[in-house]
């Protein structure tokens, strides 16, 4: 097995308390209302296909976007549409959401779960199924998967890279999925390679998950052009550009996308969802979630319906030991802190982490002591301390000229800073502004 890594990066305590907890199902309880925000992905928001009072079935498409870069949303229960109104979702954005009262009858749409052979389907048919199944990148970004699987005609994909790094502390869903659903994973890898017959396929897994690596290697020996690459556990190994560098030794040029150098990066959970949609005719209505943190009674990995609220999920697995100080949707390095427990589980939420004040309170910001650690650890090769100063000076132009847009927002700088400065936060704020104004340094 090849062992690879990238330059710089940090080693946060991995806190993967749930690495040995097998995936369990969480059933939404009778009384619960599920909420489906119309924007859970990158691209145009979806438009509702149902109105208040409609009865919907499990697996029924309830919203759909118009255009190419968008997706669709499906009901994960059978029940009645009770409301369509604005909520604040897990990413902190205001979005319209469809409310569905669960009737617990589990009545599904026709043909739900019917087996299909992907070899009998054409490439376009597969992509249409992926779009119609509401699949987006489940690692956190939420980029529509049918768009990713259909790169521009002038780009040739030579490397497919499956992301099983799971470098964020606490998260263990990819690990458990790779270990417990290995057969399905192998089939989904074959499906992916069927879409790109001329590409080499690599699955990158951090070597702290050796059990998963061994199992996949033993079951995948018959696949040609496929390799498992062991990655040195380090954050942000799962970041797209860092993963490409580790596996192919190629850097994505500044301002370019992976497909410009022939790479396609896709998350383990995402290809499993593709396999489920194509081979089993099940749209994206549930996902694997790590529920962890020091406030929770039964930390573990759970298969949960999309749309359930954090409160509902945590109550049905045994509740909380104490009131959480902070709840993070996603990993602690990149995830968003949610403002209330009514927030629904969206497609891109990989975990809810319930932290006490002791483990979740951020320390006070102090003077920079110019130790230079942020520079030593920045995987993008930037000077976070300088960018922070520029942001505090409110100088957007200098920010762009100092390569601030090349930041990948991984947060390694804030993590490592002994003065606890909010480096990543300040840089992110200006980076987003610069991107929205389409400001980029001339290269």
């Amino acid at each position: 097995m090849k062992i690879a890594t990238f330059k710089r990066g940090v080693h946060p305590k991995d806190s993967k308390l749930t690495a040995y907890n097998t995936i369990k199902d969480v059933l939404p309880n009778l009384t619960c209302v599920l909420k489906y925000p119309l924007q859970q992905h990158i691209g145009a928001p979806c438009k509702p296909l149902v109105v208040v009072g409609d009865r919907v079935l499990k697996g029924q498409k309830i919203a759909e976007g118009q255009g190419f870069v968008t997706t669709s949303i499906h009901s994960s229960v059978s029940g009645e549409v009770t409301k369509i109104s604005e909520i604040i979702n897990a990413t902190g954005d205001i979005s319209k959401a469809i409310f569905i009262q669960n009737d617990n009858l589990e009545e599904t749409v026709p043909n739900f779960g019917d087996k299909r052979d992907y070899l009998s389907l054409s490439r376009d048919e597969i992509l249409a199924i992926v779009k119609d199944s509401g699949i987006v990148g489940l690692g956190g970004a939420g980029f529509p998967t049918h768009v990713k699987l259909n790169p521009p005609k002038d780009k040739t994909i030579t490397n497919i890279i499956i992301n099983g790094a799971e470098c964020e502390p606490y998260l263990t869903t990819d690990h458990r999925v790779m270990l417990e659903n290995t057969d399905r994973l192998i089939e989904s890898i074959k499906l992916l390679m069927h879409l790109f017959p001329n590409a080499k396929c690599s699955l990158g897994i951090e070597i702290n998950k050796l059990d998963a690596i061994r199992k996949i290697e033993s079951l995948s020996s018959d696949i040609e052009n496929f390799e498992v690459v062991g990655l040195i556990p380090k954050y942000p190994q799962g970041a797209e550009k860092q993963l490409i560098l580790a596996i192919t030794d190629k850097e994505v040029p500044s301002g370019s996308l992976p497909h410009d150098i022939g790479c396609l990066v896709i998350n383990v959970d995402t290809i499993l969802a593709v396999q489920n949609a194509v081979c089993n005719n099940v749209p994206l209505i549930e996902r694997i979630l790590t529920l962890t943190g020091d406030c929770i009674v039964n930390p573990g990995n759970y298969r949960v319906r999309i749309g359930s609220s954090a409160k509902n999920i945590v109550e049905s697995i045994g509740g909380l030991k104490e009131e959480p100080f902070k709840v993070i949707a996603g990993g602690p390095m990149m995830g968003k802190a949610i403002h209330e427990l009514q927030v629904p589980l969206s497609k891109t939420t990989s975990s809810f982490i319930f932290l006490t004040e002791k483990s979740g309170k951020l320390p006070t910001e102090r003077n920079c002591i110019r130790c230079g650690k942020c520079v030593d650890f920045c995987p993008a090769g930037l000077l976070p301390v300088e960018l922070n100063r520029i942001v505090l000076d409110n100088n957007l132009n200098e920010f762009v000229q100092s390569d601030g847009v090349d930041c990948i927002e991984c947060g390694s700088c804030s993590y490592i800073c002994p003065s606890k400065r909010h480096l990543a936060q300040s840089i992110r704020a200006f980076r987003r502004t610069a991107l929205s104004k389409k400001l980029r340094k001339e290269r």
Partner: protein
Amino acid sequence: MNNIKISISSTPHIRAKHTINSIMLDVLIALIPATLAGIYFFGANALLRIIISIASAMGFEYLFQKGTKQPITLNDYSAILTGLLLALNLSSTVPLWVPVVGNLFAIIIVKQLFGGLGQNFMNPALAARVFLTISYAAVANNYLPADSAVDVLTYATPLSAIKFNDFVPSFADYKDVFWGNVGGSVGETSAFAIIIGGLYLIRKKIIDWKIPVIIIVSVLFFSFLFKRNDLGFHPIYEALSGGLLLGAFFMATDYSSSPITPLGNIIFAVCIGLMISIIRAFGSYPEGVAYAILFMNLWVPILDRYTKPRVFGTTRGGKSIE
């Protein structure tokens, strides 16, 4: 659980354990061997000056922050560290007011007037040492040989012996500079104690090994090029004596007055080694470490500007890679 208040904040939600305080405390711990060695060789005189120096550094920091209505940050150990470093840089024979005046200069002028912690463009303790040697030459430069009854050295420090009297060190002299049984500042004579502390800092990842190692190696190299006298060549003896080790491990590595870029640090260290050798060989002063470090401190902004790391996905020149 319906109306609980939860805190929100931007990412990342977890932070590394180390803090300003823990780093400063680690540097203080690393200075314990050198401090004890100084007290062992120079006695109660040294101890008294260390106490006065630390107390006055803390006092000036407190007075300045109180006077300018800022939060009092004595608990971050940085003033204690400056006071201790200054005491280690002075002779044990200086009058008791010397460390007080030195700390006035270090804390108020070099540190606080430029913005406090992290904003000083020079190492405060070193700047104060040089200020004292220049302004009060008669009292501040009187280095007493340690244990002078036994030692055969008749000159103040090993380096002045080499410089002014064509001194050739014997094996016993090597032993003396290694353990610290020579004249000099309180904290700089014992190579052994300083190296122990330096290794602790490297082990704790407070400092990068590159700055001290490169400084020492370049002093060895350049002192080979610029011979002091015709009687021979003693690079190891030179490296072990004078303020080199204390400067290399504890002064040149000062965060706020050293570059933040990896390449900048390498250039910084090589140039310090070069400057030390030039001053020692050609200057009128036997010791060059303090001046060399202060001189290079002034170059830090320029080094930082021109040694930026290569941004991911670009060439060194800032162009997008092919």
